[in-house]
């Protein structure tokens, strides 16, 4: 779950970290009212789940409330890399002497937490990593030990920040690590972490990704779930508890298992088509789940054909076939369907499906043939 900047700052503030006073606004009038409370000069910052907003004109300095009105008017509705700005953060402006970078994430390779701190902040860390890797001080933390103040101090010193920033930075790194672990975050990032002319270390931006698997122990995470960027299709699938990712093609995909679903999308692509979605209905593949999946895909206007790819393991092919037939009787489907059913009791399953076969319900024995057939039906095949 990705948090907006203002959510990330609220999240950080819970752990005592210093963030600027600010309010989120959805309209120009709200932005003006917020600026009157927060005070000027202020920053008007687009809240979007993507980077590069500064370059896109999504972050502006406002010396006066009138400036806030003007900038909020320009930024609200702005399209930044396909994300339309619907909310802005009005935040008290800060004086900046130096800009740093700080983050914690899981190093999947080392299987330890990785902290990164750099005196070169305010630019993309990937760029720093490429051009001047020595400018990033790294620390690997064993989750069982956690981060000690001693280790944090050595790490901060290795990053060669302004010596006067050391104490403030150590304190914030300790708080950031606590936010990362207690908050069950996949990523916490501050870019820039600033050092002010009056020698304070301060959090000027916040990028936070939370682990969806931890929602059960964080009651307040439901609010973040609601603000995830989802298109209409993804919203509908999410409401049904389906593992769905919207894509740009015309072949609707339903498969059981994440690996098989990914593989199905790949194979559709290999034979010259493009999938409209990734959708994993899990191992069971019963009529309820199948009809929910068909509804979501049927409501996608881009879908021209549907490829159902099921491998029967413990769930038998005959059970799956009955599930498909029942689901099809519940949903009025607009696009032709191609089924590939393999695995346990596949022959029995195919026999159950056979009487229902027609121009709009076809069956193929292999994944590749079924992919070709569904791509042809979607009118984009190369007929290889």
């Amino acid at each position, binding site marked *: 779950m990705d948090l907006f900047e203002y959510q990330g700052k609220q999240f950080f503030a819970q752990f005592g970290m210093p963030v600027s006073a600010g309010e989120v606004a959805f309209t120009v009038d709200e932005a003006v009212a917020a600026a009157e409370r927060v005070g000027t000069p202020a920053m008007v910052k687009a809240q979007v789940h993507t980077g590069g907003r500064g370059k896109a004109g999504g972050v502006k300095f406002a010396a006066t409330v009138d400036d806030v009105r003007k900038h909020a008017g320009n930024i609200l509705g702005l399209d930044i890399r396909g994300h339309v700005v619907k909310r802005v953060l009005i935040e008290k402006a800060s004086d900046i002497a130096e800009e740093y970078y700080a983050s914690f994430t*899981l190093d*999947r*390779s080392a*299987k*330890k*937490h990785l902290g990164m701190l750099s005196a070169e902040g305010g630019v993309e860390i*990937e760029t720093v990593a490429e051009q001047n890797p020595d400018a990033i001080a790294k620390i690997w933390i*064993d*989750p*069982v030990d956690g981060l000690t103040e001693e280790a944090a101090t050595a790490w901060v010193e290795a990053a060669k920040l302004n010596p006067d920033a050391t104490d403030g930075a150590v304190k914030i790194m300790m708080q950031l690590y606590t936010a990362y*672990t207690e908050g*069950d975050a*996949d990523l916490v990032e501050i870019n820039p972490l600033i050092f002010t002319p009056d020698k304070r270390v301060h959090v000027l931006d916040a990028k936070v990704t939370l*682990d*969806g*698997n*931890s929602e*059960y*122990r964080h009651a307040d995470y439901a609010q973040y779930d609601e603000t995830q960027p989802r298109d209409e299709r993804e919203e509908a699938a999410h409401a049904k508890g389906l*593992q769905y*990712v919207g*894509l740009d093609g015309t072949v609707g995909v339903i*498969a*059981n*298992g*994440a*690996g*098989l*679903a*990914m*593989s199905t*999308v*790949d*194979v559709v*692509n*290999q034979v010259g088509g493009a*999938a409209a979605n*990734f959708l*994993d209905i899990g*191992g069971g593949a019963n009529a309820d789940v199948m009809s929910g999946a068909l509804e979501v895909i049927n409501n996608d206007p881009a879908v021209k054909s549907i490829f159902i790819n099921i*491998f*029967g*393991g*413990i769930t038998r092919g005959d059970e799956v076939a009955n599930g498909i037939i029942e689901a099809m009787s519940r949903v009025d489907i607009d696009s032709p369907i191609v089924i590939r059913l*393999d*695995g*346990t009791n596949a022959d029995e399953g195919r026999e159950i499906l056979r009487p229902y076969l027609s121009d709009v319900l076809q069956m193929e024995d*292999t*994944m*590749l043939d079924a992919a070709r057939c569904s791509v042809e039906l979607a009118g984009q095949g190369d007929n290889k």
Partner: protein
Amino acid sequence: MSIFVDENTKVIYQGLTGSQGRYYGLLNREYGTQVVAGTNPKKAGTEVDGIPIYANVAEAVAATGATASCIFIPAPGVLGAVIEAAEGGVEFIVAITEGVPAHDEAWFYNKLRRDFPKVQLLGPNCPGIISPGKCNIGITAGHIAKEGGPVGIVSRSGTLTYQALYELKQKDIGVTTCVGIGGDPVPGTSFIDCLRAFEADPDTKAVMMIGEIGGSAEEEAADFIKNHMSKPVSSYIAGVTAPPGKKMGHAGAIVSGGKGTAQAKMDALADAGVRVGMNPTEAGDLMAEIVAEL
């Protein structure tokens, strides 16, 4: 032979009294696995279809001599269950449960390394392990695998593993052991752990490896294959067309910051001499070619 588990492996099911644990525990027993005990602190002294229930893993180990455990406990209880199993004295732990927080996984992974270095954890969020004809721990349908050899399988994906087992069976190719390492960010058992074990197993003559996007486990495996493996490997990587920044079903299946792409993994594997298929069927065909050449 086989790796990690065989006909002598005695297994405890943590969560045998729950609906999933009971369903798969009994299926595993039917397959021939030695399912010797279940655990549940509130139901100690009872039984599930003749299988005795103990209060905890330590008591179950003392009573049965079990060396493995299989966890069918809901996600919030997995951290406690893994540590209970390690403290209880089993050497091999299979955690099937999906949805375990990544911070829990990172914690118990490192805890085991430090305090229980002999314990091998498989999972979480994995289908389990099957040494066909000998032992099946987890949720794989046993009959889709042909017993014997010469192929070992290791995979991050459940259904693609089943697909691989099934395709090999159709081609009359047997499997020594098939290990599903799972799709989470911190798997207890890695590709390399399995490749090393297969390399040492005299009955395994070739290995099929199924990966997917996210992380760098496949690249690390490629490096291992290049430097430490004499046996031929075929591979398939799912997610070539996955968009960046999206979790594709599995918690660990995500391309982020340009890292973890399928193409980079396939290139690394091909560079290590692995025969890489473009889809599961092709990977199966490549394995059939390898077996024919043995």
